């Protein structure tokens, strides 16, 4: 019963929102805006619950002193520090300590680590590309490696390799764009079918 009720709520909200996309009525616009506003607030609340759940999990590990509880403690400490600075920033907007503290944490803690992680991604991608032919021993892999190497050179070619820039640009503008369009259309059609299944109650990702 509850699952049917949830499905009805999901279908009703979905159909209402979808219909009001194509029905240009003031009441419809207000209802659609009201639903979208509720969902955006719920999305923010869900994001906050995610943060709370993350902190609770690591606090549980610290309490039980499970494996890696020291890292969880470090995470919790850093969370408390940034949260305290943010509360100060929100509570006392005029106080620069909160604002500067949050900015300091973002610029000198979060930004460098994220950038370093992204830099590691480059190394990992290179290693994966180098292993591709050894892993997938087919002509598709060889073709993939050759195209990738050509496009890389074309992004920032050396002086004596400028001739490859035009070929790489053509590949990016014509076949790759054509393929990308097909991918976009495929993704869009997938989103369409998936959304319609949810709206029709075929898929129930919200649980039973």
């Amino acid at each position, binding site marked *: 019963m509850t699952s049917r009720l949830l499905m009805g709520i999901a279908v009703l909200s979905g159909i209402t929102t979808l219909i009001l996309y194509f029905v240009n009525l003031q009441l419809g*616009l207000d209802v*659609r*805006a009201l639903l*979208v506003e509720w*969902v*955006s607030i719920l*999305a*923010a609340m869900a*994001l906050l619950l995610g943060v709370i759940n993350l902190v609770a999990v690591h606090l549980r590990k610290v309490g039980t002193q499970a494996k890696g509880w020291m890292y969880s403690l470090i995470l919790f400490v850093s969370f408390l520090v940034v949260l305290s600075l943010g509360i100060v920033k929100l509570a006392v907007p005029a106080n620069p300590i909160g604002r500067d503290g*949050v*900015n300091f944490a*973002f*610029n000198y803690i*979060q*930004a*460098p680590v*994220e*950038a370093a*992680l*992204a830099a590691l991604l*480059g*190394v*990992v991608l*290179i*290693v994966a*590309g*180098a*292993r*591709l*032919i*050894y*892993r*997938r*021993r*087919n002509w*598709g*892999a*060889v073709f993939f*490696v*050759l195209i990738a*190497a*050509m496009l*890389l*050179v074309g*992004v*920032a*070619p*050396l*002086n004596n*390799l*400028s001739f490859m*820039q035009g070929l790489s640009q053509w590949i*990016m*503008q014509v076949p*790759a*764009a054509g393929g*990308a*369009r097909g*991918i*976009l259309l495929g993704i869009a059609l997938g989103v369409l079918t998936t959304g319609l299944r949810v709206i029709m109650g075929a898929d129930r990702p919200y649980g039973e």
Partner: protein
Amino acid sequence: MDEIKCPNCGKANPEVLLKCRYCGTELPASAELHAGPEAPSAPTLNLPETTVLGLPKDWEKSLAASDKAEQPQEAEADWLRRLRGDIGEAAPASANAAADTIPDDQPAPGLDNWLSGLREQDAGPTPEADQSGAFVPTTEEAELPDWLKAMPSPDAEPSALDSAPQAEMASEGGEADDWLKSFEPLTPASSPPATSSLADWQNIQPSATPEEDDDSDAWLKSFADQAPQTAPPSGFSNYRPPGAAEDEADTEPKAEVSDDEWMKSLGAAQDTLPTLGLDDFQKLAETPVTEEADDSDAWLKSLTALATSESETAVAESSDSLPDWLNAPTPPAPTVSAEGIPPVSDTDDWLKTFGQIESAPQIAPQSDTPDWLKEPPSSASEAKPEPDLTQWLSSVGGVVGGSAGAAPESGAPEAATPTAADDWLKSFKEAAKSDPETAEAARTGVLPDWLRSITDEAAPGGATPSTPSSSTSPAAPAGGASNLPDWLQSFKDTAKSDPATAGAAQTGALPDWLADLGGTPAGGSTQLPTENLPDWLKSASGPTPETPGAPPPADLPEWILSPDSPGGPTTPDWFGDVQSKKKPDTGKIDSTVVDPFALQSPAGSTPAIVGTDWLDSLKADAPPASETPAFEGLGRTTTGQTSQLDWLKGLTPPPTPSGPTTSEVDFQIGGESQPPPTKATTGPLTSSDLPAWLTEPQPAPTESPEASVPAFSSDLPDWLTAPPAEMTTAEALPTTTPFTEGISMEPMRLPEPSNLARADLPGWLGAMRPVSVPTGLNLGLDYEETAGPLAGLRGILPAESAIAVPGKPGAVVTRFAVSDLEQQQADIFRNIIAEESQEVEAKPVRKQRFNFAWDRLLVALLVLALMALPFAGLVPAGLFADPSRDLSAQAKAQTLFDSVANLPAGQPVLVAFEYDPASAGELTPGASALLQQLAQRGLEVRAVSTYPAGVGVAQSLLSETSEVNYIPGGAVGLRKFVTDPGSSLNDVSAIMVVTGSTESTQAWLEQVQTATGKKMVVITSAAAEPLLLPYTQSGQLAALISGLSGGMAYQSKVTGDSLASDPVATSQWEAYTLSLNGASLILLAGGFIGGVMMLLNRRGEPKPVKQAGQKQEPQSELKRRKPKKKKAAKKGSAAKATKKK
């Protein structure tokens, strides 16, 4: 209620009284007169007195005494002391004690011994047999109920006497009827008491089969004939403690004591296999009466006359003739002779005679045997001059001569007459009277005379000795064979104590013959045959006595050789004569019989020979029935049974098949103590030539090998070394125990299918059958009990628990514990576990991580080196292209620049910072250049972001005062941002999205740009460019710059300065360019190496089965990624291959 006549005053007494109320004489138990109700319980009452094997509790004492007797100095005193003990104690004790010493010669202890031995035989196997442990468990299980069933009711009393012969007759091919017919004249008078007692017996033993009832009736008849009125006291007294016998001997008159004693022996006899007796007398009842009844009356009357006049003198003479050991408590045997005194009735005569016969042996037993041993039989003429023996010898000779004389004429030994019986009895009486003189004469070499008389008897007609033996049991020769080692064994034991023993022998008790043997060691005893018996030993291969006029030596060997031929002469006649006419010999030989008895040697066969031969010599005569007392006396030993058999054979002409009764008897005898395993050692004559008790192999006692085997082998080297067939059996005898001799018949019978009817087997015998090992306990109706008293029965609850049932527990447990389905499931589970363990062995992930670490480190070092070169200034100038000069980048930057430049002035611009610090390094140049251009145009920037971190990135680029709104909810939040009336989107002229992802750009395009239709420019990363180009080509995006090159190109366009103006930016660009080109080279190098390895692997490895429609994955990847998939693929390929096949 029956009445018992006083044996003294002859007055009737109530059955309940133990002593005569008139004269105070102890009354015989009614159980001895007939089958009384209390009879069956008698053995049960006495059972506690004996061990499980039927031995008295104190049999160990006698064994200990026998050990002491081996000390030389005290040899004579020991055996005398032991003999006294033997008289008083239970038979096995005296038997074991006398076994090592001379009292073998004493008839009284001998009598007592074989009586006790008979008891023990009834009870069960010997302690040695028990120690052997080969059969004790089985016998204890199966024997007890049968033992109880066979416990001597009065019915069994005479049957005990007949049981052994019965069994032996069975072994002789059905001679049971022969001796049974000898009772035919006795049967008529025995009916009434038998009937009454039969009813009682049936009441007491309801389990008795009808046959047993008939048997009891039969034997009661015969018993009533033998001792109707003056039946001895209850045989229960036999089971009284030995001390009781001594007390009576001391306190009461000898007549009473002897009466009691011989009744004890009789009671002992009755304890022997009663059911056997029942069977025997069943035949007896069925046997028609013949003329011999008159003969039996005649000899009984003659016996009466003899007994009344001479019993006291016989006792006195016997007591006088006895040496100092006579001071000891009176042995039962002489008193038994006195018991025969009371002239109660005709049938008492034989008892009197028996008393005389029993008293005689004590006179000069030793004086005879040595004589004939010393003096080899020379010629027949030497026997004539002897006056004492002439009469009885003549009487016997007359009988024999008559028979012998008739032998040539008629050749039938049955030509016996009452007259001959009277003469014989007279002579027998005189012989009993002249015992002292006989003893004296024995020292003076009288015996050679009768030895000569043997030759005389043999001379006129060799048939004389041989003729009676024509129906003699083959047990006789075997008995003779076993006899010699026995009494020689006793001699050998005596030799150990030679000085004293030899002295004693010289002084009379054990005269010269002992002196002769006393000094002879065990090995020296082998000289005996060579010295004393050279002729008959030499003539072992001589002509048969049947041949008239055959030389005397030729007569003797026949009893050795004859057994092979049924009915042939089996016993030396002279031996039989000695037994019959010289009671001392009988007593002596009896004692010798007893001693080996104690030694658990089959010496019991000796009396068999004795009884056999003296009866054979009187064969076919009614008077030999007068020997019944003697026979009974002898018959109370297992050997006596044999002797009884022999003289009965002499009385019976045609043999008839023994029938199932005999076999039953045999089995019963065997079942009492004989274990099935001992069946193995059987001589070739076991089935027919020899009595079972001879052929019976016994579990070797612990001490018997020393006691009997060496003496046996040493005493009879000549005719044992190359023995006839029966000797092979005789060799097994020394290992037999006296208590298992009779028992030993059973294994001999089992192999014979002739007389056995399976249905007749008693339960205990079924329990002794080899039991097949059951694989499980079947409790169904077809379950057959294989052990215990219920063995052989079907459909009963098992006496043994399932645990006790032997079998293969593993198989049983497997069958009961695990079903097939469970077994299959267990196999499946086992296979699953095995596969899991195999997977654990692979560990591909570890290998991959190791390789990956090296690859990653190498690539990282290369990339770091390439990026560090520009910052280190190690890159040559002019190597890199200036992005500001890049045409494609310049065109894109120009498009964006124009789009911003074309925005209406004074109208806010919405800038969405849809990226996080991870993309800041690539997007910051373009975003900063955009903000700079917007700032150059003085356009208001409204910053928003759907990324929480985008807020921080925007704030890091914007001024401190600018506000960045966070739009939660992704596409929904953008839709809300579009539809929000108070949204900052309403009045903006353009939407400028700086994003590092395709999704955010699509969201902005789909939710905002489509809804508002406003111009939208995008600064994105190189990763998102391929998927955003279509939106550019579709016109949804006004401008798009991507990556670091696009940002630097746009930055240079906005700033108007080349990249070279900023060294840090130049170094970053150079590092970026070097890393990109280096990455392309690494990809190509990796691809080349991978291709080479791919070719090498394809040559080295078998080409994997390519599954159509799927990209073939190299095995290396399968190994490193999913080792289980490899197995699955192999299984799939294998299944495919099989399908294709």
